């Protein structure tokens, strides 16, 4: 089952001055001239034609420092930290941007090079306002690291005494402090090229150059989707998430408050990085203990509501299909789009508002949980919901915006009070003097401690799709997914390819309708022998490709269900995750997530006993029923293409 299709690569939207262009002719590596020999600091190696000096140096094991370079981004060649001397050339060359097309000799640390690098660092420091010890990026700052590497022990060209810019705190998600900006323009390239959103651009010339937004408006008023990818790629503390830890501590310190933490799957696969462990070290259960020691009254697993999301969203999909295919309802919007990534939701609200009815009305797991905690859980435990402070640990900066959406108050209160990022929780844990990796393990709290493997893989791109498919295939066929996919691993939807398209043929003989859905559909006969067409996209640049294809009536408009995640790699690459990020780091986190999934006894959302219980005693009208609709579903807001 399943085949892959990749949408055509569209050209980068970044100005070409910020890109390394492909060398003119690039013979195949095995053709004559396909490889070029270079000598780097006396070491000779052969590299494919067009390899940059930086890539070649890494291959040769020679370190060249960089600043504006980032593995995920197109090359700008602007900071000039990576300059090297190429024999026979008067000027130094930026190694990140220089393609090797003929044999050259390179020296990476001549006097000229060392002096230039030192000057560049001195100049950057001369325009970088702030002190390291009063900065959120202390010890995790590339400028600081460079200063150390080059032995900076005084400010040769001075140091700013006054800030030049007001800090923009308008956004719920991203704080911009341009006083710390070193104009590496990674954020610009992240936004316009990597994510294809285009909020940030450089304006002004010379010493007036600065990174800013459309009409220099505050971030909250422009088309920022809050994905926070720019934060993850900012080398300094110029971009950071809007940090509510003080408020969270205050709630913990307030004895009248019942403070609840729910934790999403991705932070636990990544938080170890904040404590010096390699990416992909899961600390799920150590983190539970740490959270209790920090003073949280309850620690719940967001995976529980991920399962609930699957039930609600899956039911919605089946209903849409039933209405469209059987009842001939032309108003039903297909394909259905996932709605659990708040960055993606804001992206579509801005850029494709005419497609909002395609978004599943199901809330994200975070918000479903919020609504249930202040209703179901409060009733069950006889707590006044006004005394509950509900905190969500998320890999995401957009979740901070999401929980502040005015419509997210269905419990009668603000459903989620605070969204915390992985980085912020790591800080709280350190602040409490807790050595996270050394914590004993402990489980999640009941009643929402039971989750399935399906919830866990929500953290990786393709995970929502896989969970939904595990569920839909079993519900519709009446058979175990394992009969179709070994270990219920639906491999075709996994991976890091930007866009994945998969066809799932359904058998001729389908199962009976389960009790939970009996009020909604009479039978599955209409799906017999049908082919489910689904797609997965991660990163909004890929989302845009699919949306453009759908607009043009292409191949993706024939899909039934499409998973969209705003961030590269899915939530595990979210804007709230530890810094740095790179394709390898994200792959390691994904590995941890899929390993956790395999370790679960129950790996399908509809088999979660607590889910069954909640439909039995609280959401008694079943999925999509009245109460479910009030608490678990939402609506969306069309927004402008230029301003919010």
């Amino acid at each position, binding site marked *: 089952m399943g085949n892959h299709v990749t949408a055509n690569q569209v050209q980068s939207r970044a100005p070409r001055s910020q890109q390394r262009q492909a060398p003119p002719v690039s013979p195949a590596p095995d053709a004559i001239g396909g490889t070029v020999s270079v000598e780097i600091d006396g070491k000779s190696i052969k590299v494919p034609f067009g390899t940059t000096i930086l890539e070649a140096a890494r291959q040769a094991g020679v370190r060249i420092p960089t600043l504006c370079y980032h593995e995920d981004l197109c090359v700008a060649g602007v900071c000039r930290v990576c300059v090297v001397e190429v024999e026979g050339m008067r*000027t130094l060359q930026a190694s990140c941007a220089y393609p090797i097309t003929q044999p050259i000799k390179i020296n990476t640390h001549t006097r000229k090079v060392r002096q230039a690098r030192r000057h560049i660092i001195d100049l950057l420091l001369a325009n970088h306002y702030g002190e390291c010890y009063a900065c959120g990026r202390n010890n995790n700052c590339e400028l600081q690291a460079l200063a150390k590497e080059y032995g900076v022990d005084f400010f040769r060209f001075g140091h700013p005494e006054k800030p030049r810019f007001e800090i923009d705190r308008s956004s719920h998600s991203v704080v911009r402090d341009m006083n710390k900006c070193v104009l590496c323009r990674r954020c610009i390239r992240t936004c316009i090229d990597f994510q294809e959103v285009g909020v940030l651009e450089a304006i002004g010339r010379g010493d007036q150059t600065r990174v800013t937004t459309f009409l220099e408006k505050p971030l909250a008023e422009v088309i920022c989707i809050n994905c926070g990818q720019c934060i993850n790629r900012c080398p300094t503390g110029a971009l950071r998430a809007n940090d509510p830890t003080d408020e969270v501590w205050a709630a913990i310190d307030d004895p009248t408050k019942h403070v609840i933490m729910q934790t999403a799957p991705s932070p636990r696969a990544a938080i170890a990085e904040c404590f010096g462990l390699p990416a992909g070290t899961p600390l799920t259960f150590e983190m539970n203990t740490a959270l209790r020691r920090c003073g949280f009254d309850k620690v719940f697993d967001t995976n529980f509501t991920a399962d609930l999301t699957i039930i609600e969203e899956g039911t919605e999909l089946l209903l849409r299909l039933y209405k469209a295919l059987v009842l001939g309802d032309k108003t039903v919007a297909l394909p259905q789009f996932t709605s659990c990534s708040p960055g993606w939701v804001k992206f579509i609200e801005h850029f494709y508002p005419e497609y909002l009815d395609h978004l599943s009305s199901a809330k994200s797991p975070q918000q479903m949980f919020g609504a249930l905690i202040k209703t179901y859980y409060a009733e069950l435990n006889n707590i006044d919901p006004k005394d509950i402070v509900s905190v969500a640990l998320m890999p995401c900066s957009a979740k901070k915006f999401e929980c502040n959406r005015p419509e997210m108050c269905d419990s009668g209160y603000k459903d989620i009070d605070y969204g915390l990022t992985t980085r912020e929780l790591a800080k709280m844990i350190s602040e409490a003097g807790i050595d996270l990796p050394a914590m004993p393990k402990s489980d999640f709290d009941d009643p929402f401690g039971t989750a399935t493997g399906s919830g866990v893989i929500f953290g990786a791109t393709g995970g929502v799709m896989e969970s939904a498919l595990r569920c839909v295939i079993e519900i519709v066929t009446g058979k175990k997914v394992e009969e179709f996919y070994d270990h219920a691993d639906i491999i075709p939807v996994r991976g890091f390819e930007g866009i994945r398209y998969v066809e799932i043929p359904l058998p001729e003989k389908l199962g009976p309708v389960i009790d939970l859905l009996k009020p909604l559909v009479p039978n599955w006969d209409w799906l017999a022998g049908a082919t489910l067409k689904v797609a997965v996209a991660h990163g909004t640049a890929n989302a845009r490709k699919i949306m453009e294809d759908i607009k043009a009536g292409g191949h993706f408009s024939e899909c039934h269900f499409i998973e969209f995640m705003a961030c590269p790699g899915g939530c595990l690459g979210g804007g709230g995750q530890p810094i740095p990020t790179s394709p390898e780091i994200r792959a390691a986190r994904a590995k941890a997530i899929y390993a956790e999934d395999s370790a679960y006894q129950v790996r399908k959302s509809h088999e979660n006993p607590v889910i069954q219980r909640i439909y039995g005693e609280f959401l008694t009208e079943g999925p999509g029923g009245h109460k479910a609709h009030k608490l678990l579903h939402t609506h969306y807001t069309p927004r402008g293409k230029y301003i919010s």
Partner: protein
Amino acid sequence: MKAAHEGPLTFAEVQPNDGLKAALARKRPDVIAEITRSGLRGRGGAGFPTGVKWNLAGAASGEEKYIVCNADEGEPGTFKDRVILSQYPDLVFEGMTIAGYVVGAKRGIVYLRAEYTYLLPQLESVLAQRREHGLLGHNILDKGFDFDIEIRLGAGAYVCGEETALIESLEGHRGEPRNRPPFPVDTGFVRRPTVVNNVETLAWAACILARGAEWFRGFGTEKSTGLKLFSVSGDCERPGVYEFPMGISIGELLEEVGARDAKAVQIGGASGHCVPRCEFHRTIAFEDVATGGSVIVFGPQRDMLKIARNFLEFFTEESCGQCTPCRDGNPKLLEGVRLLEEGRCSMRYLRDLIALGETMRVASKCGLGQSSPNAFLSIVKHFPQEIMGRTPQAV
């Protein structure tokens, strides 16, 4: 020697369209060979051999190619392209058409400096005439060659004279220089092979085809052949546009323009070098003191620090702001000059600034940053007594 305000330049003596006719009657490689033999080098400042540039663009793969005429003339103290465009526009368009023919381009674009907008109607009418006379458009001179020219306006940024920033600007982006390689000859406007040539280069190319490479080689030196226009300004009796053979000595030039008591001359505009009196025997040529044509004369009364400050103010504003050495270096040099003016710059800090200037020259991304410290460095080198030891002012 010819002064534009006194009489016609060589450009006036060349029969219009002779060059174009001669070129179209010959094979492309022959035309390139003629230009190469003439030794013509770019008149925009960098002095890249024009024949080589055309050859590279001609050899680059791709059907669609472009000829861009760089009429951004933004270098302080340069105004010779304005004279050419207003008096001999046909030669420029002719040069572009010839370039189009030899590299296989069908479209030419003139990137006209915003301040020259007043020339637009006249230039447009010349283009219209040329189309009428079969010198532009479809099937030029019945040789089966199509080529047309459009004019685009800049918006006042100096850096947009740098060829890759110019191309960015033509494409509708912020005018910022690109990473090179690749060069415009293989990845230029809309990623197509593109020849960018200065106004004067194109005009000379047309003359060379009309009169032959040998004629052009008859002027100038071995490495810097031919004639060249100079924009002379500053403390001299007869400022204006002059035509001299390449290789003329600075002293001779100053003599001609009536600047016998000059203390220094800035050759090559803000990004050029400041040459002190003791070096007036040097020649203006690519192998000695190179220039795009700007000559600014400084009389004995001039304060050299003020001159340095003026140039650095220019670069502090005009840097595109992309790369660290230029964006952040120029303001530091400027600050340093202010300190010198106030007598508050230590020797140690001055040495740091000189070293910084060296870094800017080698580490900046484009020619602007690479040349921006030149004036400062040459003034500090040649006028140490004048700039050091000023009386500290009360702060």
